[in-house]
């Protein structure tokens, strides 16, 4: 029972961090109907930026803030340089998909070049900032508590942003009909850039949190977690913010429990097992809106 509870708590903390990454996929998908495969690489980039600024002795919090801004800008840049021209040309969706894969190749491999950061693992400053919490036999690391609190706060802010502000209203308008939103006077390009910025910023925070929890980072860290977070976004219903949170938690808990009882090999694919089950039973995810085919 205790190991089970421990695994669940592990999963909850990890799941909230997945949710932070999943939000990036979800928001971009909502606005553009596009799977942004470069998102995982932006997450790795965010973690590396924190590492870089910490090594310049800037302090952890300042490093994270700087990294958040830079990663957000990077995500925006990816959109401006690689994706916007394709949108303007109205090219086929698969071309855009390949482009995001190409971009993730570029970011990930620039990070692993020898005189940038190198391909080997690097020690990441721990986020165990205060004493671990013990309840009975279960120990909860402080990095997990921080992960949980920060993610919950951020997701609250994001929900307010999407539901309660003008920018959020514009995002939802674009999601429903980009052309009509444009006619209504919304600066579509600006809002799309903003969406990418928010996604990149959240990914950077997730990078810092997960990096601090495991204590190591490597350039390839984004590929597996990116796919898993993406699965989480789809499980919850891609394009829906609270869906990403629930999806992240489900994926986090199930994979930690499965790893506990079935061995570590099943850890990573568990997200996809849930994903396929959900998609077959409920093709739009748990909270997804039903798409209507117009003729």
């Amino acid at each position: 029972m205790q190991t089970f509870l421990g695994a669940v708590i592990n999963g909850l903390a990890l799941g909230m961090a997945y949710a932070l990454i999943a939000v990036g996929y979800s928001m971009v998908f909502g606005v553009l109907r596009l799977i942004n495969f470069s998102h995982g690489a932006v997450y790795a980039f965010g973690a590396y930026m924190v590492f870089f600024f910490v090594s310049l002795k800037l302090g952890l919090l300042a490093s994270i803030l700087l990294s958040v801004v830079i990663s957000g800008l990077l995500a925006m840049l990816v959109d401006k340089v690689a994706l916007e021209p394709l949108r303007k040309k109205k090219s086929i969706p698969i071309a855009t998909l390949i482009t995001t894969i190409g971009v993730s190749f570029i970011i990930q491999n620039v990070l692993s070049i020898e005189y940038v950061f190198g391909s080997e693992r690097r020690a990441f400053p721990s986020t165990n900032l205060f004493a671990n919490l013990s309840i009975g036999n279960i120990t909860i690391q402080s990095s997990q508590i921080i992960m949980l609190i920060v993610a919950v706060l951020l997701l609250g802010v994001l929900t307010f942003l999407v539901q309660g502000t003008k920018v959020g209203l514009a995002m939802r308008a674009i999601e429903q009909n980009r052309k009509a939103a444009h006619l209504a006077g919304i600066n579509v390009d600006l809002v799309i850039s903003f969406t990418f910025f928010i996604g990149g910023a959240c990914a950077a925070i997730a990078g810092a949190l997960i990096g601090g929890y495991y204590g190591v980072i490597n350039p390839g860290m984004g590929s597996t977690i990116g796919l898993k977070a993406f699965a989480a976004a789809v499980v919850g219903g891609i394009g829906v913010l609270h869906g990403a949170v629930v999806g992240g938690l489900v994926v986090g808990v199930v994979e930690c429990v499965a790893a506990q009882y079935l061995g570590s090999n099943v850890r990573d694919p568990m997200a996809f097992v849930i994903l396929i089950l959900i998609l077959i039973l409920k093709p739009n995810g748990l909270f997804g809106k039903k798409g209507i085919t117009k003729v």
Partner: protein
Amino acid sequence: MKKKLGTIRENGFLYVFEHFIDAHRAALIALLALLAIAFPYTPVADRSTQRIVTMILLYAMLGMGLNVLTGYAGMVSLGHAGFYGIGAYCCALLTTRLNFSFWPALLLAGCLAALVGFLLGLPSLRLSGTYLSIVTLGFCEIVQMVLKQWDSVTNGNYGIRNIPKPELFGHQFNLQNGGFYQIILALSVLTALGCLAIKRSKYGRAFQAIRDDELAAGMMGVRTARYKILAFVISAFITGVAGGFYSVINNGYIEPNNFVFNVSVLIISVVVVGGLGTIRGMFFGAALLQLFPQVFPQVFRFLNEWRFVIYGVLLVAAMRFRPQGALGWQSTLPYPLSRRTREELAHRSVLPGGEKGATP
């Protein structure tokens, strides 16, 4: 009548080029066939060249397999490494554990992959577009998990060793005597012919109708459910056979990590960079993407670390400037009418003489 052709420029490079090839088709095919057969006996064919050319043809075949699904039927799969792995493991297990000969094992590998393709095709009835791609991505990960987890059969993370080389009437095929090259040449040519036959048949037209507009195709009486699953089955079969072949050329050793998501990405890159829906494009795309990481570091030694960065730039640039693929041009040749149609038209004296549409 030629004036009515609209945007086709008759002195344009493509027009001249395509008509030249069409006019000398037999001679060019004979020349190409001669070159392809003679290749292993020429002095350029040392071990490394043979290996590269074999990999190019293998990826061309994988590309053609995915092309049936993505290029013809318009369904994007991000999980073809799964079929590839199933084919490879099936072939390897049959030859090592049950002492099958390579050839029936290869066929069975394709059949098993096709069966799995049938199962994976079923969700395609409920899901479309991006969601279907997501399911195929998940499928690839689950195949990985099964390969790693099912220790008693697949030997888990350690993979399968000592896979025997293919033999036929006592003649062993290996890398040195050009045997691998001959097998994959035969397989890829067979696949190309098969794909061509599919594309020009009723099935191919049904696939393309579904790709362009599924609803309209259904209204016209195309049984979309059946054809979508069929596209999955054919595509998986080709990929499975390619996987079976891969199991023997990789130094007699395969492991689950040979069939990860990145392989799926490579296959789909071959298809899109080469030219979606074409067969020439698959060979070109495979050559480009296989040669690049091999040749590039030798030419630009100091940029060795940058090669995957540049690979990414290549993908992005290709999509930016030529999203239809390198060889994905719109044909300027007249549409190949069937003989019956041509006879019918000649009978009504619309086409002069019913000869092969030389004057459209």
